[in-house]
C-alpha cells in the first residue's frame, strides 16, 4: 500500500465521488465526512511515513500513458508538495464538516470530493501533462460550485473565473509542449517528466520565452496584479465552502508551480525577471491592501487580503535563496490556514445575517464574544503577529528577499503596516462600537458545528507559529535541493551571483559557525 499511497490519495476521493451518486441524499454529508476523513488520515499517514531527511521525490509511481510521446502517469512528492496536499485534504474535511449549505447537499459533496482529487493530483503530479490535466480539471468543480451555489452574479463570476484562468493555462500548455519539443531536440526522446526536464540546461533566450509562457498561466492563478480581477468576483459570489477552498488551496497552485517549474527549469530567466516580478509583487501587496481598506463588504476585504499576502509569497519565491523560498512555501500553508479560516468566519456571520456589508454589523464583540475572539485570533494571524503561523512565512520571505534588494524589501515590508490598517479597521467596523442594528442584538454565537471547523484551524495557526519545525524542516530540505539545482544550472553571471551555492556554505556565515 505504501508504494501506491499517492495514487490512492488521488483517486480514492474520485472513486468515492462516483459511489456518492448512489448514496441517499440525507446521508450525503455523513458520507462526505467519512470519505474526507479517511482521505485526511491517509495524508497524515503519508506525512508519517515521509522521510524528512530526504530532499528528493518520494513515493514515486510511474505508468506509461502515451509512451510514444513520453507522457507518463508520474507522481511523487517532496517536502514542498507534501504539506500542501495535507492542507488540501484537511480543508476538504473542514469544509464538509462545517458545511451549512442546505441546497443539493449531495451534489455539493460529490463536487467537493472530485475537487479534492484534482487538488491532490496537481500537487503530486511530476509529469507536465498529468499536471496540466489536473490543473484544468480543478476548474470544473470550482466553476460548478460558484455557478450553482453562488450569489446573484454567480454566472458572470464563474464564467469569468473559468475563462480567465483557462486562457492563462492554455498559454502555459503551449510552453509545456515547446519545452517537451526542446527536450526531444536535445536528447532525441520525448519526455514530459519534470524531473527529466530539470536536467536540461536551456539557452538563456529560450528560457525567457518559456518563462513568460509559464508565467501567464501561473500569474493568473495566483492571481498577480494586474490579472487579479477575477478573484474578488469569484470570492464575492462563491458560497463559503467555495471561497475557503479557492483561497486555501487553489490559489496555491500558482505559487507552487512557480517553485516547481519556473525556478528550477529557468533559473537564468527567473533571475532576469526577478525585479519586474518583485515590482508586481510589491504592487500586489500595497495596492491590494489599499483596495481592501476601501471595501465595504467584509468578504471582499478578506479576498483582497489574499491578493496582498500572495504578493509576499511571490516575493519570497523570487528571493532565490533557501530562506526566502522556504518562507514562501511555509507562507502558502500559513495563508491557506488563515484565509481559509477567515472565509469560514465570514460564512458564519453570513449564515446569520445574509449580508456581508460591514455597515450592517457593528458591536458584534458583545453579542458574539466567542466568534469575535476566534475572528480576532485569525485576524492577528493574518496581520502576521509573531507566534502565529503567518509570521514565520512572512518573516522568512521578506528576510530572503532582503538579500536580493534592500530597498524593495523595505517597500514590500509595508505589508505589515497596510495589512494591519485594513484588517484592524475592518475588525473595528464589524466588532467594535455599540450594537446599532436591532437584528444584531440577538445573534447566536458560534455553534458546535462551526466550532468543529474553526477550533482546529486556530490550533494549527498557533501551533505552527510557535513550533514550525515539523513542517519547516522537510520544506527546507527540499528547497535546498532546488536552490542547489538552480545554482548548478545557472549560466548567466547575474544568476550565478544571485543564487547561492549551498555546496560551499560558510563564505558569508563564518560568524555563525562560531556558536
Amino acid at each position: 500500500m505504501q508504494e501506491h499511497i499517492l495514487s490512492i490519495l488521488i483517486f480514492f476521493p474520485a472513486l468515492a465521488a462516483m459511489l456518492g451518486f448512489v448514496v441517499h441524499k440525507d446521508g450525503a454529508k455523513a458520507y462526505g465526512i467519512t470519505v474526507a476523513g479517511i482521505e485526511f488520515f491517509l495524508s497524515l499517514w503519508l506525512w508519517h511515513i515521509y522521510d524528512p531527511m530526504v530532499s528528493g521525490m518520494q513515493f514515486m509511481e510511474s505508468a506509461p500513458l502515451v509512451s510514444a510521446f513520453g507522457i507518463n502517469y508520474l507522481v511523487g512528492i517532496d517536502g514542498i508538495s507534501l504539506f500542501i496536499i495535507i492542507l488540501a485534504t484537511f480543508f476538504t474535511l473542514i469544509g464538509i464538516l462545517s458545511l451549512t449549505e442546505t441546497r443539493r447537499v449531495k451534489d455539493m459533496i460529490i463536487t467537493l470530493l472530485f475537487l479534492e482529487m484534482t487538488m491532490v493530483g496537481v500537487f503530486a503530479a511530476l509529469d507536465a501533462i498529468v499536471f496540466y490535466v489536473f490543473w484544468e480539471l480543478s476548474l470544473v468543480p470550482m466553476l460548478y460550485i460558484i455557478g450553482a451555489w453562488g450569489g446573484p452574479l454567480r454566472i458572470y463570476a464563474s464564467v469569468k473565473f473559468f475563462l480567465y484562468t483557462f486562457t492563462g493555462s492554455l498559454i502555459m500548455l503551449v510552453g509545456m509542449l515547446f519545452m517537451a519539443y526542446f527536450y526531444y531536440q536535445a536528447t532525441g526522446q520525448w519526455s514530459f517528466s519534470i524531473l527529466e526536464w530539470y536536467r536540461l540546461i536551456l539557452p538563456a533566450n529560450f528560457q525567457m520565452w518559456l518563462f513568460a509562457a509559464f508565467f501567464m498561466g501561473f500569474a493568473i492563478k495566483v492571481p498577480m496584479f494586474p490579472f487579479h480581477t477575477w478573484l474578488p468576483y469569484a470570492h464575492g459570489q462563491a458560497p463559503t465552502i467555495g471561497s475557503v477552498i479557492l483561497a486555501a488551496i487553489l490559489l496555491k497552485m500558482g505559487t507552487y508551480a512557480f517553485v516547481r517549474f519556473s525556478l528550477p527549469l529557468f533559473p537564468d530567466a527567473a533571475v532576469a525577471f526577478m525585479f519586474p516580478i518583485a515590482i508586481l509583487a510589491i504592487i500586489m501587496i500595497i495596492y491590494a491592501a489599499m483596495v481592501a481598506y476601501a471595501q465595504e463588504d467584509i468578504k471582499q476585504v478578506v479576498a483582497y487580503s489574499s491578493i496582498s499576502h500572495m504578493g509576499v509569497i511571490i516575493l519570497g519565491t523570487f528571493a532565490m535563496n533557501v530562506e526566502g523560498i522556504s518562507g514562501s512555501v511555509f507562507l502558502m500553508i500559513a495563508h491557506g490556514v488563515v484565509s481559509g479560516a477567515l472565509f469560514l468566519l465570514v460564512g458564519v456571520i453570513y449564515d446569520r445575517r445574509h449580508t456581508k456589508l460591514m455597515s450592517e454589523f457593528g458591536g458584534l464583540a458583545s453579542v458574539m464574544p466567542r466568534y469575535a475572539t476566534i475572528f480576532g485570533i485569525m485576524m492577528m494571524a493574518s496581520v502576521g503577529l509573531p507566534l502565529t503561523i503567518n509570521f514565520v512565512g512572512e518573516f522568512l520571505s521578506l528576510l530572503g528577499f532582503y538579500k536580493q534588494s534592500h530597498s524593495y524589501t523595505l517597500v514590500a515590508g509595508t505589508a505589515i503596516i497596510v495589512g494591519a490598517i485594513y484588517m484592524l479597521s475592518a475588525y473595528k467596523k464589524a466588532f467594535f462600537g455599540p450594537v446599532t442594528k436591532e437584528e444584531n442584538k440577538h445573534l447566536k454565537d458560534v455553534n458546535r458545528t462551526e466550532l468543529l471547523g474553526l477550533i482546529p484551524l486556530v490550533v494549527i495557526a498557533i501551533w505552527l507559529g510557535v513550533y514550525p519545525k515539523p513542517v519547516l524542516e522537510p520544506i527546507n530540505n527540499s528547497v535546498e535541493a532546488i536552490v542547489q539545482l538552480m545554482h548548478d544550472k545557472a549560466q548567466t553571471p547575474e544568476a550565478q551571483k544571485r543564487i547561492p551555492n549551498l555546496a560551499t556554505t560558510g563564505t558569508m556565515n563564518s560568524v555563525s559557525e562560531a556558536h
Partner: protein
Amino acid sequence: MELYLYTALFSPLVGSLIAGLFGASRKTSFTGLLTSGLLLTSFISSVILLTYVMAGHTVHVEMMTWIATGDLYIPFGFVVDQVSVTMMMVVTTVSTVVHIYSIGYMSHDKGFNRFFSYLSAFVFSMMVLVMSDNFLGLFIGWEGVGLCSWLLIGFWYHKESATWAANEAFIMNRIADLAMLIGIFMIYWNLGSLQYDVVFAHISILPMPVITWIGIFLFIGAMGKSAQFPLHTWLADAMEGPTPVSALIHAATMVTAGVYLVVRANPIYSEIPDVGNAIAALGAFVAMFAATMALVNRDMKRIIAYSTLSQLGYMFVAAGLGAYWVALFHLMAHAFFKALLFLGAGNVMHAMHDELDPFKMGGLKTSMKWTWILMTLASVALAGIYPLAGFFSKDLILEVAFVEQHYILYSVLLITAGMTAFYSFRLVALIFHGDKRHLEHGIHPHEAYTFMLYAMAPLAILAVISGMVFKTPYYLMVTELLPAVQYHIHNHTTFWIMTIGTQLFVILAIAYAYKKYAKAVKVDKKVESGFFYQLLYNQYYIPKIYDEVFSKPYLQLSKLAWKEIDLKIVDAIVDGIANTIYRTGEKTHTMQNGNLSSMLRWMVIGLVVLLVLAVAFTAGYNAVNLQAM
C-alpha cells in the same frame, strides 16, 4: 535556576490562559486573585534570580528551536543577566501591584475576567521581550506587547474613541516595527546570526555605514514603542484604556521597551556615537516638546502621559550619550513613581465618576487623603526633589549631559525639569487643593478601597527609596554588562552649585504652580486664546496634521484605487477584451447565414487568403535564409 527562569516567564501566561477561559463568563474574583497570585510567583522567582545575578552569575537557557531554515537558526532562548533581571524586577513589581490594584479598580466592570487575561498576557509578552536572548525573540515580545496594548486600549470596545486609539497605537507601532525588522534583516545578512552574544561580539568587524544603518533602523523601531517624535501621538490617545493599563503599559513597562532595546544593543550604539548623539538630541527635544504640551492640557491622564513621554526623552538622552546604566536606572525609578501617579489618578477617576478634567475637581485632599499623599509623593519624586528617586536618576542624566559637554542638551533638560515640576504640581494643586468645584457637578468623592491603597504602598516606598538605596548596588551589578562610566563633576563647587541650583529651580516651579492653582482657579481668557496656548493645547496640531496628511488621503487613495483603478481600469480592460471577442462573434455570425453559395464564397476567400499567406511566408523565409547565407 532554570526552574525559576521558567516560573518567572510562564506564570503570567498560565494566568492569562486560565483567565481567558472565563473571558466570556460572568465576573469571578477568582480570575483576579489567580492572576495576581501567579504574578506574585513570577515576582518572587525574579527576586531569586536577582540574588543569583547579584552574586555574579547569569542564566542562559535554550528552550527549543523556533525557526530553522537555510543558515538561519532562531531558538526560543532566554537569558537572565544584569540588564534583563533589572527589567524583570521592574516589570514583575509594577505588574503585581497593578494586578492587585485592578481587582478593586475593575470590580464593577463586565469584562473583569477578560481584563485580567489581557493584562497577564501583556506581562508575559513583556517578559519575553526582556528575557529573550536574540533579536527575533525580542521582536516576539515587541509585537506581543503591541497586541496586548491594542486589546487593552480598546478594552471598552463600545467606545469609538477607544477602538480608534487602539488601532492608531497598533498601526503606528507597526510602522516602527517595519524599521526594526529591516534592522534585524541587516543584522542577519551581515553576521549570520541574531543571537545577542554572537552579534555583539562581531558587530565591530562590520563596515561603519552598515553599523550605522543597523543602529538607525533599530532605533526607529524603538521610537515607535517608546512613542518618540514623530511617532508619539498614539501615547496620549492610548489613555482611552483603563487607568491600570496606562500605569502598567503606557508608563512603566511597554513604552520603556525602546530604551531597553538601546541599552541592550549598547555594543552597537557604542560603535556609532554620531547616531547616539542624534538619539540624545531627539530625546532632549521630546523631553521638552512633551513637557510643553503637558503644561496646558486639561485631561488628567493625558498630562501624565505627556510627562511619561518627556521622561522617556530623558532616558534616551542618557542612552544616546552612552550612559546606558543611567538610562536603565531612570527607567526603573520612573516606572515606580509614574505607575504610582497613574494609579493615584485612577483613584481620582473612580471618585469623580470618570471625570478627567482637573479643572472640575479641587479640594479632594479632605475626602481622599491617602491618594493625595501618594500622588504628591509621586509628583515630588517625578520633580526630582532630594531624597526621592527622581533626584538620583533624573539629575544624574543632567550631570551626564554636563559631563559629556553637551551644554545645549543640558540646558534643555534643565528647563524641562522645571516644567516637569510645574505641570506635576499644577495637577496636584488642581485636583487636591482649592475649591471643591466638583460639588457643582453633584459628585461626592470617596476614597478608594483600602486594599487598593495598600497595593500602591510598595510603589510609594520604592518611589521614595529606590534612588537612594538601590543606586550603588544597582551600579555595581549592572556595570558587569554595561559600560561602567562614572559621571562625576570633578569640580566640587560646580557640583554643589548645580545640584542646589537645580533643586531651587524645581522648588520655585512647584511653588509657582501652587500659587497659581492651589487657591482659586482664575481662567485667563487672554492667555488661553493666545497663539502659544492654542498651539500647545492642540498638541502642536500634529494629530490634526497626521489626520489630514496621512489618514484621510490614504482612505481617499484607497477608494480611488478600488473604485477607479481596480473597477474602471484593470477590470474594465479584462472585460473589454472579453466583450470585444464576444462582439466580434456577434458581428461575424451573419457569415453563417445558411446560404450555401455565400458560404462557398467565404470558403474561396479563405483559400485565397491562406494561399497568399503561404506564398508570403515562403518568400519571407527564403529571403531571410538567403541573407543568412
